[in-house]
């Protein structure tokens, strides 16, 4: 009833190619942005802004990165956390060695550095596919973690190997408060998400999807496999690199190489799978699900009070979390994004389904 496109005609090519062809979607998106940019900073307390929403956004960005590579191009990667680490350490080293550089520039450099490393470790994808490629990217994961732990130059010879992010200031404004950090992350993530959405709708994105669906057929219709796969690695790593820099600078403030271990890579892979492979929206939903669910379970179990021991609650969290992931994958293998799509289809027919 509410969600119906009757009477909305597309009279221009631009209208036909819009990201949100239906007016209701555009309104909903505008409201969502308004909530994210205005209502949340006004209403949410520091805890929610600093330690719930900011990591959700950072993980969303990393998940978009992995989704471009795995969901759109079909190249399975287990090196996501390593590319994040490259971004974090690149931004740190630039800031330490050239303090005049504004931090936004160092974020871009972080992305570019990660993209370079991503291309390097993407080279095996030209020869191998599927699980074999996953193993090859696993090499990136272990090598980069080892490199940052053992080569003192990257951590500026800090004895403990833990780097502390320098303060972020832009035109005299210092990003210290939870609100400013949340908004900074939100701006970067929204801009990059829109760019990603447009990229996957462009010729490049279509080439990626063609390679994913069948690389031989893609090559037959004139797509350069090497270029397509390597751009996917580069763009994906760029996103991960920026996410890594945000993680180090905006969220934690300190970073050690162990923060980007293989478990982090798996975590992001789960976000992409649960959110929905090949969907930008899914990256956000997956990140929100994986980050919020443990917090929700921990908070909800507080209701039981002393009836459950702290130990039981800690383990219960794993049980519920793991159980829900299995339920999800059984009921809807295509992820949360697909569920949202089903909701939209149902709403379109409501209240007269046939």
């Amino acid at each position, binding site marked *: 009833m509410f969600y119906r496109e009757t009477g909305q005609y597309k009279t221009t090519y631009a209208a036909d190619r819009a990201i949100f062809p239906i007016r209701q979607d555009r309104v909903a998106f505008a409201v969502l942005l308004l909530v994210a940019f205005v209502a949340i900073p006004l209403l949410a307390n520091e805890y929610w802004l600093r330690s719930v929403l900011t990591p959700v956004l950072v993980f969303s960005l990393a998940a978009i990165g992995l989704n471009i590579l795995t969901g759109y191009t079909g190249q399975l990667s287990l090196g996501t956390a390593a590319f994040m680490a490259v971004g974090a350490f690149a931004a740190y080293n630039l800031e330490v060695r050239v303090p005049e550089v504004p931090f936004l520039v160092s974020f871009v450099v972080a992305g570019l550095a990660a993209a370079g490393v991503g291309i390097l470790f993407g080279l095996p994808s030209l020869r191998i596919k599927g699980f074999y490629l996953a193993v090859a990217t696993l090499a990136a994961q272990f090598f980069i973690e080892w490199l940052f732990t053992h080569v003192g130059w990257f951590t500026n010879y800090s004895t403990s190997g833990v780097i*502390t992010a320098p303060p972020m200031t832009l035109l005299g404004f210092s990003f210290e408060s939870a609100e400013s950090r949340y908004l900074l992350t939100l701006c970067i993530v929204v801009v990059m998400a829109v760019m990603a959405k447009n990229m996957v709708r462009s010729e490049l994105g279509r080439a990626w999807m063609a390679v994913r669906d069948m690389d031989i057929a893609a090559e037959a219709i004139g797509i350069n496999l090497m270029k397509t796969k390597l751009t996917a690695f580069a763009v994906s790593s760029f996103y991960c690199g920026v996410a890594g820099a945000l993680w180090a600078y905006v969220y934690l403030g300190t970073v050690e190489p162990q923060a980007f271990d293989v478990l982090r890579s798996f975590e992001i892979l789960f976000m992409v799978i649960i959110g929905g492979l090949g969907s930008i929206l899914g990256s956000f939903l997956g990140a929100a699900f994986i980050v919020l669910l443990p917090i929700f379970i921990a908070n909800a179990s507080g209701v039981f009070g002393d009836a459950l021991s702290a130990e039981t609650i800690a383990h219960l969290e794993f049980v519920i979390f793991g159980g829900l992931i299995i339920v999800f994958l059984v009921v809807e293998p295509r992820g949360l994004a697909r569920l949202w799509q089903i909701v939209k289809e149902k709403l379109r027919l409501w209240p007269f389904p046939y």
Partner: protein
Amino acid sequence: MRKCLIVALAALFLAGPVPAVAQDQSDEGAGAEQFIPITSYRTGPYAVGGIPFQDGFVDYLKMVNARDGGIEGVRITWEECETAYKPDRFVECYERLKNRGERGASVFNPLGTPLTYAVIDRLPADKIPLITLGYGRTDASDGTVFPYVFPLMVNYWSQNTAKIRYIAGLEGGLENLEGLKIANVHHDSAYGKETAPVLAKQAERYGFEVEHFPVVHPGIDQKAVWLNVRRYRPDYVILRGWGVMNQTALKEAARVGVPADKIVGVWWSCAEQDTVPAGDAAVGYTCSTFHNNGTDFPLMQDILTHVHDAGDGTGPRDAVGTGFYNRGVINAFVTVEAIRTGMGEFGARALSGEEVRWGIENMELTDADIAAAGATNLVPPINVTCADHEGGGKVLFVRWTGESFETASEWLEPDRDLVRGMIEESAAQYAAQKGITPRTCES
């Protein structure tokens, strides 16, 4: 089915924030109660140490509530938050708990070096102190640069100097250290690498040789490391492990023929959880602690009578007296005494973080105080000052007999002169990097 899932999901996300809010309110307006946030790890690779430690911590708080009705009559409340030994989850816990209680979180005990690093920069703004008992950032012992961080009792560097003294004792004097080869087998992390500078300095001073052997987290496979250790032919091995790494190290050492009595461990490699699984390989293994083990102390007996006999024990009764459990008790003991010191200044009411900070900084536990608390020989005296946030603890060495730890040394005094200079140097460097002006301490 799908429909159910959608409805359930929608309900979940709408209901998500509600319990969190409800809990916030339940803590308020409940009279004079001192809130202590507890961040624990009962899951993950280091849970083997985390569980008994937290049980000891919570049991001590329960005992103080049951025996004395709280600290100076102010009941203690607490809430546990699971960190799984991950910095990001600890930051989430820190932010979640820092405004709980009547006057906010009093003091955090992160129980983990990486976790400590993750919040150090946030403390001055939030005005919440951090007690890092026997771990954490060593140069934070300089209270002029780190007013909110307290690596109490003995920090890693002091611990390491005591360990070298212990080895010297076995060799018959500091002059006999010359020419010795010491292998430092360490966890490859911020924690593990923390002692490298002090070892280098001592090697230079006493003329021994050090070689570092990093073990990658979590340390389940160490065959290659120990083959290298054997090739190096060390006179002594320093084991700086954590969690499952320790038992593996002891087993591998026995396999390649490094005798257990030549291995000297740090206190995070010094618990029954490390030695029992290693079996015979661990017999004769020595390690350091900054507190005593066992239950032969009035304070530990009080926990047994007031908490475990009352059926309120957090963990199994057998765990009482083991290494990690006692360390948790000591951590809670120091926290409670610091709050008590603060109450002496500000009155017997719930204290804020800043007031607890004052309490920790002015805490002085003499032999008489410790005897009154029933902890003689369980912990050495502590005296924290504005500049010295370590508080001057001592180190005890214990040897595993196959069944329990026996005392292997007296309480050894660390080489604080050497360490203090390095701490001030390192803290000054940190202050310069961060643009911190160190505060001046009187006297």
